[in-house]
């Protein structure tokens, strides 16, 4: 149990993330004191919800090893949101909108899972292909136009705030992370994921259904992307074909910052959660300081490279 807890979220990672987060916040407050209010917290959590859901799926896929990676998450977010809104236009009862959105994401994830498992394609090339298919299709089908017509009750959920915490964050992101943490820590499934990420061949030899677990994780990553698409619809009031832009980079950075090893088998969802909050706080801070948004993608990219290099260095240092 102790070793498992070590795997789950190295306390050092969490401490470092908290320290970085404090630095960002103190820096932001020093440069612009007017951000000190509850509204900022709400905004940050609102932005965090989408990245948190996507980052969770990405993190689980990577954790399961086998060079697992899901580059298509951003495209899946956009396309599932668009598919759901188009279904609504074609006469789908509005009550089913959330279900259709998540289902569409799950099916996109299932395609990834089939390419990786059934056809044994390398995950990075298979999901790179589906990334362009999904995000391209979302843009091409709509011609780039946002799809309006979200039912009012969904907006009520998407824009609702309880004690400064946005409803989607409270009712979707937090339960998903809690559930994932619970599964990873205290069920056989969680152990299987760590085991196959750590050494796939041994995992197979001791009878873990590696292929089935991996397929389900890709489906899950897609379904979480679908849920993120739903949040975007409910929050923004329209299905936007480019809502998933840069999410593949941001979710990877969140997963790596959160202490998940790119080779799999190490890390936990707590770190991912902290990393998402750190990333979004940083992005919101830059926005508040009126720094052009083109800097965001560069900073997130630089962070990703930096984290990967730091991870390698610390490994060498330890051994």
């Amino acid at each position, binding site marked *: 149990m102790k070793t498992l807890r070590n795997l789950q979220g190295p306390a050092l990672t969490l401490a470092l993330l908290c320290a970085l987060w404090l630095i960002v916040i103190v820096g932001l407050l020093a440069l612009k004191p007017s951000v000190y209010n509850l509204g900022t917290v709400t905004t940050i959590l609102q932005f965090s919800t989408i990245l948190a859901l996507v980052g969770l799926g990405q993190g689980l896929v990577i954790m399961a090893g086998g060079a697992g990676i899901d580059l298509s998450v951003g495209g899946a977010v956009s396309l599932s949101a668009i598919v759901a809104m188009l279904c609504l236009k074609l006469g789908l009862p509005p009550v089913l909108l959330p279900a259709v959105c998540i289902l569409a994401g799950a099916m996109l994830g299932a395609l990834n899972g089939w390419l990786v498992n059934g056809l044994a394609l390398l995950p*990075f090339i298979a999901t790179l292909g589906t990334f362009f298919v999904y995000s391209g299709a979302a843009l091409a089908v709509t011609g780039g136009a946002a799809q309006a017509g979200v039912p009012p009750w969904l907006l009520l959920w998407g824009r609702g705030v309880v004690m400064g915490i946005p409803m989607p964050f409270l009712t979707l992101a937090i339960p998903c992370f809690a559930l994932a943490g619970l599964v990873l820590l205290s069920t056989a499934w969680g152990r299987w994921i760590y085991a196959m990420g750590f050494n796939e061949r041994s995992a197979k030899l001791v009878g873990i259904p590696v292929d089935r677990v991996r397929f389900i994780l890709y489906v899950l990553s897609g379904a979480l992307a679908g849920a993120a698409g739903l949040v975007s619809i409910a929050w923004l009031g329209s299905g936007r074909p480019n809502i998933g832009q840069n999410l593949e980079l941001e979710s990877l950075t969140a997963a790596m910052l959160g202490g998940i090893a790119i080779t799999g088998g190490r890390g936990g969802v707590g770190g991912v959660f902290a990393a998402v909050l750190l990333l979004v706080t940083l992005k919101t801070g830059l926005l508040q300081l009126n720094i052009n948004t083109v800097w965001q993608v560069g900073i997130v*990219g630089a962070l990703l490279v930096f984290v990967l290099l730091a991870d390698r260095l610390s490994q060498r240092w330890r051994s």
Partner: protein
Amino acid sequence: MNAVRLIGDGVFSMNGREWSLLVACLLAIVIFSVASPHYATSGNAATVLRNSVELLLIGLGMTLLLAMGGIDVSIGIVMGLAAIAIGRVLGADGNPLLAIVVGPLVGALLGCVTAAVVVLGRVPAIVGTLGLLGVYRTAVFVLLGGQWLSGLPSSLTNLLATSVLGVPVPALAIAVAYLAVWLALRRTPYGLHLLAIGNSEEKARLSGIPVIKVRFITFVISGVLTGIAATFYVATYRNVEMTIGSTLALDAIAAVILGGTSILGGRCSLIGTVLGVLLLRILQNGLLLIGVPSLWQPVVTGVLIIGVLGFEAVCNGLPLGRFQRARA
């Protein structure tokens, strides 16, 4: 598993894969000619060839990278950065000879940066270059300062639009680059080492191949080729826009995979890449002319990548060596 194919490959030797690509190219031309009256014109043929120049050069580098089990998704934006450097030199000075040198130099430099992260830092190529892609994209925006680089002097254009002995300079450059890459791949120890690394990096290392050096050099070669591509880009369009090169990496990967180079190592075809580039550009141009909006292009390219790989997987018999090559 796959025997490394070596000496004995002629410069343009083709086998089943390449022949079927050639047939596919011809078939596509016939179909589009029937479907659109604007297709089979000499002007359009020139457009397709013209649009292929950068992709051919970048595709040669991408062939080496993929054959080695690497990848570089930032390569299109690297071309953008090199193009900006060329544009600035050209705008300040107008000396085309200096501008010709700048492109490959910047390309080599950025290739070194990528290699430092991916090879020396031992970061999986896909993740490392994705991070660099973000950094480079910001760099392009910042360097351009929110506006196009346009109205560049025509001195570079005049220099590169000429013909030598009746052969246009771009064609000559591509031929030279092709021959150089072919020689390196098929007639030097470097090529042998590269293919061995593609087959199994671990085995290559154990048999004494200087894995790090070979991988580093390959990223630099790819950077230099990209820098040359940027030179032709600037010479042709005489401007650099914000979105420069955003789909080039995907196109290059698709062309190389179409051409039959295996990411799992062991098979690498330069002539296949050339035909893959031509087929891709013929398809993109033809679809545009029969009225498919250009927004569909990434979808088509993505489907091509997955379709070709899926087809190969089915043909080769399923679960094929995932254990041997778990690498991203």
